[in-house]
């Protein structure tokens, strides 16, 4: 509808992307001289962010962005961010741009997707506290005042936010909601308890996706599956913090991201072991940029942490 909305949308989403990247790269912060070849240093982090920011605020691009135009489609905007994120040495995987569960963690959103609107807190600048009726006569003099209960608990805004280039905005909009390391409040559902507590301990995880997958494959290959006696044969792996999150992610997963399910039977059968070895070989990540092979792999799992 509006032909002036695209810059707002682009800058907001782009800004959020920068906050996320900054936070995840900081989690990897290792002093330059002690870093291994595959670890991210402070210098790397600054370089990645510098590359992306300079691409984002490139003069020509800004001029193009601010021209009055219709909003891009979701797909088109997604492509723009993909290109933007890859303007640096960093590589991201597809899934990392899909899932954001911060709202769920912060209780801003319910698990059914609905947003929680608080009935307390500061009011927008210019709005008075609800609950007052004032009556005036023909001369404009106030003749009566009535108060009524409205069930909320609001306070007026302390001051108007600054519109200058630098200033106190008063609001939290546009600030970094990833900067504080908040404790992950998990709903302790059956089966995911161990996983949840492990995540809470690992504030700075060391995600080497390849090694994790290798370990998994080793475990699965060496395991003997007994005849199913109980209700749940084998084990169920949940890569999310809680079962609810897994369901939520499944619901919000876009159609385009197709994936194949490979059934792996980890028995002692020789033939099956060959099959397994072949599949393990397929776990190799093919698309590796020449500049930083292993750093790109790290980012896969890093973005999945979000």
């Amino acid at each position, binding site marked *: 509808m509006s032909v002036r909305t695209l810059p707002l949308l682009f800058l907001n989403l782009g800004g959020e992307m920068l906050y996320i990247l900054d936070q995840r790269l900081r989690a990897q912060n290792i002093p330059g001289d002690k870093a291994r070849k595959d670890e991210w240093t402070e210098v790397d982090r600054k370089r990645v962010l510098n590359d992306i920011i300079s691409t984002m605020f490139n003069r020509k691009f800004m001029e193009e962005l601010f021209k009055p135009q219709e909003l891009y489609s979701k797909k088109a905007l997604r492509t723009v961010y993909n290109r933007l994120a890859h303007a640096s040495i960093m590589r991201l995987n597809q899934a990392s741009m899909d899932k954001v569960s911060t709202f769920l963690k912060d209780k801003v959103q319910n698990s059914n997707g609905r947003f929680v*609107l608080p009935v307390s807190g500061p009011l927008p600048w210019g709005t008075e506290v*609800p609950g*007052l*009726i004032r009556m*005036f006569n023909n001369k404009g003099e106030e003749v009566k005042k009535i108060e009524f209960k409205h*069930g909320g608990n609001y306070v007026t805004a302390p001051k108007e936010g600054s519109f200058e280039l630098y200033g106190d905005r008063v609001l939290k909009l546009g600030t970094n909601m990833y900067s504080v390391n908040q404790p992950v409040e998990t709903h302790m559902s059956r089966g995911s308890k161990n996983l949840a507590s492990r995540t809470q301990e690992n504030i700075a995880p060391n995600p080497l996706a390849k090694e994790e997958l290798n370990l998994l494959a080793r475990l699965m290959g060496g395991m003997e599956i007994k005849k199913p006696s109980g209700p749940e044969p084998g084990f169920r792996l949940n890569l999310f913090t809680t079962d609810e999150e897994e369901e939520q992610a499944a619901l919000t997963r876009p159609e385009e991201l197709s994936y194949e399910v490979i059934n792996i039977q980890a028995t002692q059968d020789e033939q099956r072991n060959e099959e397994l070895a072949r599949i393990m070989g397929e776990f190799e990540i093919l698309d590796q940029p020449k500049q930083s092979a292993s750093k790109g792999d790290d980012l896969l799992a890093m973005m999945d942490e979000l």
Partner: protein
Amino acid sequence: MFRRERSISLRGSAAALCNNLSVLQLPAHNLTYFGVVHGPSAQILSAAPEGVPLAQRHLHAKEGAGVSPSLITQVHWCVLPFRVLLVLTSHRGIQMYESDGSIMVYWHALDSGDASPVQAVFARGIAASGHFICVGTWSGRVLVFDIPAKGPNIVLSEELAGHQTAVTDIATEPAQGQDCVADMVTADDSGLLCVWRSRPEFTLLIRIPGFGVPCPSVQLWQGIVAASYGNGQVRLYEATTGTLHVQINAHARAICALDLAPEAGKGTWTGHCSLYISCQDVWTPILPPCFF
């Protein structure tokens, strides 16, 4: 007071637009029609008493020459002396249907001639006044259509100038004798209200200035203008003089709709923060004419 009735499910979402619910009561047929817009379509639902849904229909905005689909801004039933028409306003123009949405009887394309490239062009704000239908536009102009007793011979009879910014809502009430001359009020994005009379011809009576916030929704009843504003306030003015008589700090966020139950003499309004407030206390002191 008010009693909550059984809920009716819509077969789709409702757009986050102001005044996005229109209701037509047909007591003779024991029917109630509901209209809601979302994107390029409008959903028309008919329900029996007790909220039993009967039929649903989707109406679509008429496509224009452009690539992007037209979005509907509002749907509203206009009750005229001899007929009821369903009016749809969109970014391309104005569509008028028979009351059940079955046949389109009239199409008016908006003239975007003097709009700058950055300006969104649309129609918004619909009300019936006698045998006229008034529709607001993006420029502030109000289009007045002359509606015959039956048939599709609808004519654009005049354009009213009074607003400088896009019209948000129009409210009318039947003129009652000489005392209540004002029978139409229009509101716009700047918060300005224009009060008009329709007989013998459309005339601007008075302007009620805004105070820096939009007025998305307005009602007119017994010579009283009820206007809801973007800062959560509801204000009641005397229509003929524009005098402010009541100011209510009703909501914590912008109010998106304001409605009136004329027989009961009461109003309700809904705000963005979803608080429900009864205004019974408010209307009672206003009713006796000697208050003014």
